[in-house]
């Protein structure tokens, strides 16, 4: 007996929408078994994972605060991923965006400008795009692999921010802590809900969702990038430029990641640190794919991922669950989501020895 995956001739539309629900149900079943085996009350664990983090206004605010950069970056990356441009270096683009915004915030020349925050936003986006432009240029000019170049530039960006906060930009009043001076209030996003950390940078994300949706689904340029991603022969036949698509894909990801960097330093952080992001640039890759590279899906995927992180922390604290169990539970959800997706597109066929095959030939 043999198992084989065969492409389905017709994909069920209903199953396409039901697959996340089925995946969630399977995750709960697996979680039930997992937590019970660990000697914990599964219902209490579920509560710690899914309810406790968001049963207060502050919790909900944290959920959105964490989801916002994930969604923002994922939408930028989705533009590239749809055209098979693999920007893996959003983390580095985020860091450079934050550095650029920090430079504007810390520059005394701009301190009194009413456009300080706007200037930081622009600088952040430009910084992220500049960092993404390097792999784009090397790819279009020398056909260098953008996956490697963008990933390696992440480490360069990390060293750059280290140099700045350990060196020229170190806070003179900071007792030698590697961090920049605190930004002035005018250089921070206003808080949206009092007594929470939720700030106006989520509005940037909402704008990005809208722009991303229109670009990917309604614009001719978005269509061209999709064609390049699906078939380079068809793109050449239609006369759509592959190089331009590389630039669009890389710069969209870079701009989004740079903006997310601004959101961090001009939001919850309020200054530059050696670690600006807890890996948003990498997690956003998962968010982009779980959201099926569609802006609306990405919003849900970003919220889910954010909840899983908050829930993991909460379960570790309140239930004493090992960190590994929390990660396992998060991984299981992604596994079931992607697995259900495969089964929407493919069916499993069991191949048994048939009547013809059984009659073996002896020469």
């Amino acid at each position, binding site marked *: 007996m043999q198992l084989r995956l065969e492409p389905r001739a017709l994909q069920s539309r209903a199953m396409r929408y039901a697959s996340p629900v089925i995946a969630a149900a399977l995750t709960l079943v697996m979680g039930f078994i997992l937590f019970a085996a660990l000697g914990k009350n599964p219902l209490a664990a579920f509560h710690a994972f899914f309810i406790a983090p968001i049963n207060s206004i502050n919790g909900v605010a944290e959920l959105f605060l964490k989801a916002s950069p994930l969604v923002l970056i994922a939408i930028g990356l989705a533009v590239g991923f749809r055209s098979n441009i693999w920007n893996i270096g959003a983390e580095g683009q985020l860091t450079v965006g934050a550095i650029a915004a920090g430079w504007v915030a810390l520059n005394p020349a701009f301190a009194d400008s009413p456009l300080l925050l706007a200037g930081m936003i622009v600088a952040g986006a430009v910084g992220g795009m500049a960092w993404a432009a390097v792999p784009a240029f090397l790819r279009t000019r020398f056909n260098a692999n953008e996956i490697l170049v963008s990933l390696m530039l992440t480490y360069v960006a990390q060293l750059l921010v280290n140099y700045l906060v350990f060196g020229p930009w170190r806070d003179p009043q900071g007792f030698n802590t590697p961090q920049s001076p605190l930004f002035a209030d005018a250089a921070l996003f206003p808080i949206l809900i009092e007594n929470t950390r939720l700030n106006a940078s989520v509005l940037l994300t909402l704008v990005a969702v809208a722009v991303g949706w229109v670009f990917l689904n309604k614009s001719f340029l978005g269509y061209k990038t999709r*064609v390049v991603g*699906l078939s380079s022969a*068809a793109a050449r*036949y239609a*006369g759509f*430029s592959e190089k331009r698509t590389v630039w669009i894909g890389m710069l969209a990801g870079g701009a989004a990641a740079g903006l997310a960097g601004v959101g961090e330093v001009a939001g919850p952080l309020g200054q530059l640190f050696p670690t600006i992001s807890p890996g948003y640039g990498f997690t956003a890759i998962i968010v982009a794919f779980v959201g099926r590279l569609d802006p609306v899906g990405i919003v849900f995927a970003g919220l889910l991922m954010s909840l899983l992180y908050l829930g993991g922390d909460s379960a570790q604290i309140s239930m004493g669950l090992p960190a590994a169990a929390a990660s396992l539970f998060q991984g299981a959800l992604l596994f079931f989501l992607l697995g259900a997706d495969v089964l929407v597109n493919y069916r499993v066929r069991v191949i048994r020895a048939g009547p013809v095959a059984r009659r073996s030939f002896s020469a």
Partner: protein
Amino acid sequence: MSDVFAAASGEKSARLELRGICKSYPAVVANDGIDLRVMPGEIHAVLGENGAGKSTLMKIIYGVVKPDAGEILWHGAPIDVASPAHARELGIGMVFQHFSLFETLSVAENVALVLPGKPGLDEVAERIGTVSERYGLAVDPRALVHSLSIGERQRVEIIRCLLQDLQMLIMDEPTSVLTPQAAARLFETLRQVASEGCSILYISHKLDEIKALCHRATVLRAGKVSGTCDPQRETTSGMARLMIGRDLPKCNHPEAAGDGEARLIVDGLSLASENPFGTDLSEIRLVVRSGEILGIAGISGNGQQELLAALSGERATQDAGVISLCGRAAGRLGAAARRRLGLCFIPEERQGRAAIPSMSLIDNALLTAHGQRMVAAGMLRADVMRDFARRCIDDFDVKCAGPDAEAKSLSGGNLQKFIVGREVMQQPKVLVVSQPTWGVDVGSAVSIRQSLIDLRNAGTAVLVISEDLEELFEVCDRIAVIANGRLSQAKRATETDVEEIGVWMSGLWPARVAGPANAHADESVHAT
């Protein structure tokens, strides 16, 4: 007639018998209860349109594909052909439409790879020499395969089969890559092989060939046997009715209007191929006028791909003036810029080049027809796109679930009708088409050819590149031949015939007649 063979060879039973063979794929039933009997020494035709299930059936016999149900009897005993290697052990050889030779190895090395044991290359070369002399299959055992012509490669494949103890030879559409003269020589060889007792299964959809060669024919339609007949006695229209279920339709082809303006001029195009095994173009000259169809015949691999890429703009030429389009030097323009000048192009690859399989027909309409007011201020106009796709589906009789159907859900013929419709509806000034009806069912082929003729009548300059001579004579006003990267002069279709074009296809044509676009090309061409 099969009784004669049984009696002659002293065998009572068929060499091969299939009973109720079924095979289905996810979306299609390829074979549905097929019966077939092949006698020793018989040349048996398996006749059917593209998609009728011929290739699947042959793959089952050759052990490439397992049937879902049914029995295979070899010399009267039921067997299960486990693999192609097993089939060769039994004495079954197959020559595929697309050859399975290593281009960088020599003929002898390619042959040695499939022979049992480990014979030395000298011994293999000697055996190749013997067989090729006996059957008139001239080929040099030491030549590297990539240096061989298509016809020679086919000979290598046949020799490779003949070197084994061959009891049955399967030929899958062998003449699609041959000139008419080479096809005639192949028939001589096959007759000789059959006269020595070997059975031949001959797969084709060309009725004339089957009449000329085969003793018996089994006709397939939509995965089922629609009938068997004796091709010597049955008429071609009778066989066509068995094959397509109705009479063969015809195109309506009035005389060309006369001398229109020259819309597409190629003047001395030489271009090295990007593919190491491709063909370099050399001094190509042609003119296509408004209101005429120029056909380019030739066996595939003689520079057609390279010429098409240069014409469509997928590959730019060094010198802008070499190609002019509606009076503009266009050699260095890209594909999009040439479309804006009024060029439309239909390549032979439908899925993945002319259409994107996973996109809807609406989105596929946008691929090239975006100039039809489908884009305003950079945004897509969904209503215009849908309307265009729907009109294309209606006017060109595309069978599909609707404009939202994905391109991959359409059959090859229906997708081709959609693509032709999409280009024709843009009312191009120049249309370049490659293999317009390759792999398309007979009914669709006629309607596609008719729409090319209608477009010509409306004043478009049409260039058709095809391997199918019948098709070219049906639609073209003038015909030229491409061989080894060189193009012959064009002759009026009414002043030439299949035999003359066939000779030209092997690279031998007379010196050019001086004309406006080929004034300085007075050399005669001797390509191998």
